[in-house]
């Protein structure tokens, strides 16, 4: 079975989506980030578990992705963004993030651990919010979502540096950040 045939098999992909979700939810819970106290604590800057989990994932994934890409096993999905879409959307998301105390993945994980606020408030709210966005999408698509396109798709393109140099610098910066958090007692 080739990679192409696995990716094109829609029934297999439904099963794989479920399996990836199960592993993801398991790891999120074991990492502690399906807990409201941990996520809200991160936003209140009293608990840095979310940063630790995210940076560790990015550090490992960044190297893995680019090695796999070098050998042709994966391709980039990075898309050009805009200030109107990514900055405004990101800030709206941030306000919701703090009010809810979960993000779209961890809210589902929290439901699995028995958090009823995540189910009745969070997941229901997410469905309503996604539906509202679908309503206003035609108006936003041709206006604000197009405003202020970023000058490049990737960071190496933006900085005009070789990809591997950017990866090395970012890896060192992330190690430094995690070491600094440890040093400060977080």
């Amino acid at each position, binding site marked *: 079975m080739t990679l192409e045939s696995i990716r094109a098999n829609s029934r297999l992909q439904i099963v794989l989506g479920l399996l990836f979700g199960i592993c993801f939810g398991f790891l999120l819970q074991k990492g502690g980030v399906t807990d409201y106290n941990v996520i809200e604590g991160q936003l209140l800057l009293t608990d840095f578990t979310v940063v630790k989990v995210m940076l560790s994932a990015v550090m490992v994934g960044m190297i893995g992705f680019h090695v796999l890409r070098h050998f042709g096993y994966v391709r980039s999905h*990075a898309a050009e963004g805009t200030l109107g879409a990514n900055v405004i959307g990101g800030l709206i998301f941030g306000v919701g993030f703090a009010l809810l105390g979960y993000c779209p993945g961890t809210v589902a994980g929290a439901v699995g651990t028995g958090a009823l606020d995540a189910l009745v408030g969070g997941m229901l709210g997410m469905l309503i919010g996604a539906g509202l966005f679908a309503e206003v999408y035609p108006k936003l698509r041709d206006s604000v979502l197009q405003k202020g396109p970023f000058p490049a798709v990737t960071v190496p393109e933006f900085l005009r540096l070789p990809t591997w140099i950017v990866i090395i610098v970012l890896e060192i910066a992330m190690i430094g950040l995690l070491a600094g958090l440890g040093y400060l007692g977080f």
Partner: protein
Amino acid sequence: MFEYLTLTSWSPYLAGAGIGVLCCLAFVLSDRPIGCSTAFVKLRGLIGRTINPEKTGRMDYYQEIVPKIDWALMIIPGVMIGAFISVLLSGSFHLLWVPSLWESTFGPSPLLRVIVALAGGILLGFGARWAGGCTSGHGINGSIQLSLASMVTAACFFAGGIATALLLFHGAGAW
């Protein structure tokens, strides 16, 4: 090995590294970033089709993100099951309406907690679709791919989140 699975929690670095490996596997086997907010659009679209099929069929957004049971939709039930298996193995499953950090500032009322959580969920779903992804899709998987837009988006998630959380908790403390 099994003892490890029954631990209440792992080192966040280990769990994070596991997530990094998982994201790479998803790129290889499914040619997709693991994201969580698309599933909510698809599910909302499926609900819309049952309630008002004509209107849902006409909406542009559901032409682009087609409501159907596929890889992106299955991530969310998967995450629920995965987290459930994890707490089942460690024996830490418990039903909860009001998290302790919330209760310490806003009191034990489940109604107040659910109202604010619902408002937060609406903004979260709306903002995630506006930005085209979530903490996982942009924050982890976009960053892995060195996407400039994703890294800026992730910074905005936290900038908005930290500002709102500090206002919410410290503002409430001052009242």
